């Protein structure tokens, strides 16, 4: 049977290490040159207990709860196990001991030292010592005869000696090794090993071979060797049954021989080729653990060991039924590596679901497996030589039948009896995943993160002297850090901009409690507590905007307002796994059914509260990677649900495709090592960021040192992303997916960053154009047409030009049909819109405008705002309906039907609760003066551009992520304008004009008259540029923004004078248009100014419309010149 080498993990610092199992096989115990003894509860234990025994630990031995170590202070000490209390010093040497070992009964310890001496000490009475003198160099290793009569030692003087313990005499000595002067210079550690049981053989590693000497006669009886083993063997170790001998070499090879057949049955290579210096068998004989000189620890699992012998020795008739059953499932097992983990996992009903869950590792199979499973493996092994079988194994399989029988003479004694009754062999149910808080580390840790989210960090300390909770906010403006004593024993926490929610499980006397620290409350009572009904335990909790939810063990979900009012209670279809809240959305994941074969069967519900409560996802299954479980659940900052499974796959809800889940990132792909993970703490859609903490060698980070957040990019798992086509498709699809939140936000009444939206739309169109060009080059005209169908009309015209220029007339014709269709569509839409705006021109050329104008304007503007705000309230309802109806022809997604839910929108337009936060000030103190400092006044409002676009620097529109932690719009002046709590008006005045300039989206003042005055009219060239920009880009797609302008200048100059004149004329004509448009709007009661406070109120909606117009046009003109003009402003 192929054994599985588990991943390497870091155990100690570099240097000599040793390893052993405890008597039960439950713990792995290691020691290393860092002086620590670590006690691992399985290889996946992320938090091993450790005992510090000295500055360095040279060797250890463990038996019957006594841990004996050789440490750097020249002593051999005893510690109790597993508590690790010091239990005295056994013996001392003049220099450090090199190797210690127990006898088979655990009554004596033998220790060899660098001072050439070997001592044998009674554990119970350390005064009874026997000293063996005779070696002429440091002792390398010692081993007891299982019958306790003899002791074998190896030394740097090149000799391997056998001693009679009682007489303290050397019986025989073989000069087998090379002479050296010190252990550190020895080529091999030469760890001897005496066969357990009868002790028939003494195994001595001599260079690349293992020599076996017979007890009593002390004759060299045989040599175990392997052709592939070319490096010196460092350690040997007998399997507990005494049939197999394992050896670890300097070059990292691990070899297992069947001693009876003298055949190599297993070969493994150390992952990194480090020198193996410690090797130990699990008492069951199925696993072997080894350590290397770099301090790493690893494990070989699924060694057949004695069981195969017992298999062949036993009459197999009794087990025939089971065997047949196995045949049915052979396919399963042939999957080899894929299934290995699951095999041991799912077929071991003894495994308790509790053991691994917290470490979220289901493969904690250090618990002895049932005999059944091992036997099953052996049968399969014999029957079908799997592809993954190693060479030696085949040899063994062919010629080894006899050997098997022979070997069995020793075997059965050590093997647990095989259960004979029929056992269920079908798919085994998976233990259901325990409930957890996303963004927390396991509760059993003494120092742990109870929550790490986009708002802040909640840390829990639970050691002897202190039981406390620390709350810290990423943004210190939200609230100052808090330190709470955790007298109730809270184990769950959530954190939002408004409150901290804590919950503790019930105890014998006390009910489970929910505690909420509502720090943003404006009254003086900032805390409330609620007892859950008797017998009900909080399992998961979360906070949203203005509400808190807790799921309990009674399959109930209880909803509270953030002030403590009980608002809802309903039953969940299954035990909760975790919950997450964002704004008005609540995402619940629960157990839908029992999963089989390592799978979890989870269901998900998405509820929306607020004015209209509804369920958006009705308990559909949650897709997970194979054999994985949920490890993180949450929302993006923009409010799209997403989650991460234990395989590291991040999936996000695709609202535009019927609420399907799309994998957007595979975090494990970027990990360097297999045992590294990324611990996700947040997801952002704009800019596209996956915020996570890289954890080296574990699944979650320690609290100290403070982990640093890293950012991963998203990548959709499309085919062939190495090719240009694949890359562009991935980019396009990703952009499409990540803009879904715009339509969601606008449909649920939030403000949308129009600018970023149109920016991403523009990027997509550019991508489409590039893909179009690529397909043209590849002569894929059908594909070209497909792409063209996704384009907007303007871009299609470009595509037509490109096609005709590259002499693809047929293609151009088809495209023109499409263009016509699109034009018709738009026309229809426009007709529906009652021709609200036919020429979206007005706000052009702001970038050219001078700073002086702005400053002179701002005062007027504010007066206007005040006035208009008052007026606005009466008009806002009708206004909102009208403006919502407009569709931006430049942004496809804006065309998505907007729910005509009149009231909420109107409401939100005015008193959106998020706005206040957006303005960057706690609502409780709106007038709070900001720290005046250079940096603070440097509220450069330029927004970080979305990752992709170099041209996207112009700042973000008046977006407000519903729950974005203090949205970055803090400094975008536009937000202030939009939100306009009266108190901030004054501050606005002080804003340097440059700020205003930098955000072209800040809508100009409302009054139409003023508007046209201030509007610097477009020049003829700009108009021309507008028309021809796309074609320039199409011709030379790789041009930079500034180059485009240059190119355009050149082209414009080449035009004839007449043509230029006609453009100038058109420019003049447009100025009139703009004014007309304004007037018309005013007449309709809409009032022009968006952010500046539309006369009719409903600023947001107006803002959208305006921004649509503006951004679509302006962006083009602004990009190149914005920097320059900003500079000019500063001079003013």
């Amino acid at each position: 049977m192929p054994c599985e080498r588990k991943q390497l993990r870091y155990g100690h610092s570099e240097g000599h290490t040793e390893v052993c199992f405890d008597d039960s096989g439950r713990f792995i115990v290691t020691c290393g040159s860092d002086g620590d003894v670590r006690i691992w509860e399985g290889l996946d234990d992320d938090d091993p207990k450790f005992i510090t025994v000295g500055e360095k630990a040279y060797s250890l031995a463990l038996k019957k709860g006594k841990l004996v170590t050789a440490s750097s202070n020249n002593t051999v000490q005893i510690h109790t196990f597993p508590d690790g209390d010091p239990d005295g010093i056994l013996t001392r040497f003049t220099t450090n001991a090199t190797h210690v070992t127990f006898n088979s009964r655990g009554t004596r310890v033998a220790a060899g030292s660098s001072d050439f001496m070997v001592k044998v000490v009674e554990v119970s009475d350390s005064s009874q010592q026997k000293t063996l003198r005779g070696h002429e160099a440091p002792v390398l290793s010692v081993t007891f005869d299982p019958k306790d009569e003899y002791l074998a030692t190896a030394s740097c003087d090149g000799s391997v000696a056998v001693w009679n313990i009682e007489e303290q005499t050397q019986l025989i000595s073989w000069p087998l090794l090379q002479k050296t002067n010190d252990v550190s210079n020895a080529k091999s550690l030469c760890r001897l090993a005496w066969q357990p049981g009868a002790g028939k053989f003494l195994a001595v590693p001599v260079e690349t071979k293992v020599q076996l000497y017979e007890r009593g006669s002390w004759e060299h009886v045989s040599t175990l060797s392997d052709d592939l083993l070319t490096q010196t063997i460092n350690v040997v170790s007998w399997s507990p049954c005494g049939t197999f001998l394992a050896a670890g070499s300097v070059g990292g090879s691990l070899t297992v021989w069947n001693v009876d057949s003298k055949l190599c049955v297993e070969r493994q290579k150390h992952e990194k080729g480090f020198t193996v210096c410690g090797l130990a068998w699990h008492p069951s004989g199925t696993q072997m653990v080894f350590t290397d000189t770099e301090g790493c620890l690893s494990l070989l699992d699924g060694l057949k060991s004695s069981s195969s012998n017992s298999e062949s020795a036993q009459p197999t008739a009794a087990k025939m039924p089971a065997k047949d059953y196995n045949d049915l499932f052979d396919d399963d097992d042939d999957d080899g590596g894929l299934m290995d983990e699951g095999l041991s996992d799912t077929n071991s009903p003894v495994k308790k679901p509790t053991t691994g869950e917290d470490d979220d590792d289901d493969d904690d199979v250090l618990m002895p497996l049932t005999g059944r499973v091992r036997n099953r493996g052996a049968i399969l092994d014999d029957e079908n030589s799997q592809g993954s079988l190693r060479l030696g194994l085949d040899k063994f399989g062919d010629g080894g039948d006899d050997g098997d029988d022979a070997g069995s003479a020793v075997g059965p004694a050590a093997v647990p009896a095989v259960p004979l009754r029929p056992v269920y062999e079908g798919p085994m149910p998976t233990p259901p995943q325990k409930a957890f808080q996303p963004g927390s580390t396991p509760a059993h840790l003494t120092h742990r993160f109870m929550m790490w989210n986009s708002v802040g960090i909640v840390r829990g300390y639970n050691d002897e002297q202190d039981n406390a909770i620390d709350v810290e906010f990423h943004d210190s403006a939200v609230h100052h850090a808090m330190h709470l004593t955790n007298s109730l024993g809270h184990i769950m926490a959530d954190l939002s901009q408004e409150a901290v929610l804590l919950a503790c499980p019930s105890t014998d006397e006390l009910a489970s409690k929910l505690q909420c620290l509502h720090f943003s409350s404006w009254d003086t009572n900032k805390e409330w507590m609620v007892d859950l009904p008797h017998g009900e335990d909080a399992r998961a909790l979360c906070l949203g905007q203005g509400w808190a939810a807790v799921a309990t063990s009674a399959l109930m979900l209880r909803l509270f307002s953030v002030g403590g009012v009980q608002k809802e209670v309903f039953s969940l279809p299954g035990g909760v796994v975790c919950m997450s809240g964002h704004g008005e959305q609540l995402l619940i994941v629960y157990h839908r059914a029992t999963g089989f074969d390592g799978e979890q069967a989870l269901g998900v519900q998405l509820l929306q509260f607020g004015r209209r409560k509804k369920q958006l996802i009705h308990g559909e299954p949650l897709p997970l990677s194979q054999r994985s479980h949920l490890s993180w659940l949450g929302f993006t900052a923009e409010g799209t649900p997403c989650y991460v499974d234990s395989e590291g796959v991040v999936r996000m809800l695709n609202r535009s495709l019927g609420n399907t889940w799309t994998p957007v990132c595979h975090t494990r792909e970027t990990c360097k090592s297999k045992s590294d993970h990324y611990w996700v703490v947040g997801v952002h859609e704009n800019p596209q960021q996956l915020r996570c903490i890289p954890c080296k060698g574990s699944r979650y980070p320690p609290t100290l040192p403070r982990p640093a957040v890293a950012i991963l990019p998203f990548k959709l798992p499309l085919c062939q992303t190495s090719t240009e086509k694949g890359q562009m498709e991935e980019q396009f699809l990703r952009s499409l997916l990540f803009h879904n939140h715009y339509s969601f936000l606008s449909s649920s009444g939030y403000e949308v960053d129009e600018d970023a939206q149109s920016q991403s739309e523009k990027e997509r169109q550019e991508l489409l154009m590039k893909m179009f060009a690529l397909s043209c080059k590849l002569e894929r005209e059908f594909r070209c047409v497909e792409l063209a169908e996704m384009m907007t009309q303007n871009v299609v015209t470009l595509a037509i030009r490109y096609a005709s220029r590259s002499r693809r007339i047929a293609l151009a014709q088809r495209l023109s049909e499409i263009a016509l269709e699109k034009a018709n569509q738009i026309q229809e839409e426009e007709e529906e819109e009652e021709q609200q705006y036919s020429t979206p021109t007005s706000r052009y050329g702001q970038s050219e405008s001078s700073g002086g104008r702005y400053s002179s304007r701002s005062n007027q503007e504010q007066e206007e705002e005040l006035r208009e705000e008052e007026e606005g309230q009466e008009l806002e309802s009708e206004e909102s309906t009208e403006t919502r109806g407009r569709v931006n022809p430049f942004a496809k997604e804006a065309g998505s039907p907007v729910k005509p839910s009149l009231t909420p929108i109107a409401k939100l337009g005015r008193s959106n609760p998020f706005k206040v936060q957006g303005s960057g000030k706690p609502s409780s103190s709106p007038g709070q003066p900001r720290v005046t400092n250079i940096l603070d006044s440097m509220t450069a409002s330029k927004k970080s551009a979305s990752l992709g676009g170099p041209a996207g620097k112009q700042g973000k529109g008046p977006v407000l992520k519903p729950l974005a932690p203090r949205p970055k719009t803090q400094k975008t002046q536009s937000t202030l304008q939009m939100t306009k709590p009266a108190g901030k008006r004054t501050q606005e005045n002080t804003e340097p004009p440059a700020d205003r300039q930098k955000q072209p989206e800040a809508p100009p003042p409302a009054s139409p008259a003023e508007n046209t005055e201030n509007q610097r009219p477009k020049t003829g060239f700009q108009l021309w540029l507008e028309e021809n920009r796309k074609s320039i880009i199409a011709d030379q797609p790789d041009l930079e923004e500034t180059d485009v302008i240059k190119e355009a200048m050149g082209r414009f100059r080449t035009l004839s004078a007449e043509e230029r004149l006609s453009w100038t004329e058109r420019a003049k004509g447009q100025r009139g248009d703009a004014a007309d448009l304004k007037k018309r709007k005013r007449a309709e009661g809409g009032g022009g100014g968006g952010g500046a406070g539309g006369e009719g109120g409903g600023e947001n909606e107006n803002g959208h419309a305006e921004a649509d117009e503006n951004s679509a046009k302006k962006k083009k003109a602004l990009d190149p010149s914005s920097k320059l003009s900003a500079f000019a402003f500063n001079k003013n």
Partner: protein
Amino acid sequence: MDPSEVEFLAEKEIVKIIPNFSLDKIYLIGGDLGPFNPGLQVDVPVWLALNLKQRQKCRIVPPEWMDVDKLEEMRDLERREDAFTPVPSPYYMELTKLLLNYASDNIPKADEIRTLVKDIWDTRIAKLRLSADSFISQMEAHAKLDNLTLMEINTIRSFLLDSLNCMYKLRSNLQPGSSKGQLTDY
């Protein structure tokens, strides 16, 4: 050159900070900084990092080399080698001083680091003196010193130049037949 001027230059070095406020990109002559997102690492020059730190607006992430193990290794190497070994940063001394003075709470094992850097510094300055000594005693005309940092050069520059000048004068006086030089000296 004044040590404070060297320090001023060192303040241009880039360090990572974790801000606890949010701010958009700031556009400075020296380049754009930010955007600052609470909880996310960002690269800023030392002067800004210290400023923010003093106003408790950020935590400073110590540079990679500011680690006890690495510095110990460097110190040992520095002691072993006769020549100057490459330093972790051209401004290691200044940065250590600045960061440890203002942000010692963000740097694990600050005291040990301070000692180690001081050790490295002392070793290097001792070497520098030694080589200056042998340079003079062997009457060499040229010396090549690699891997010296600005601060180190600065510490010895004025002294060395002055003393060389002085010695030149003395020597020219001693030389027979250079009565002319003698005259000018008086």
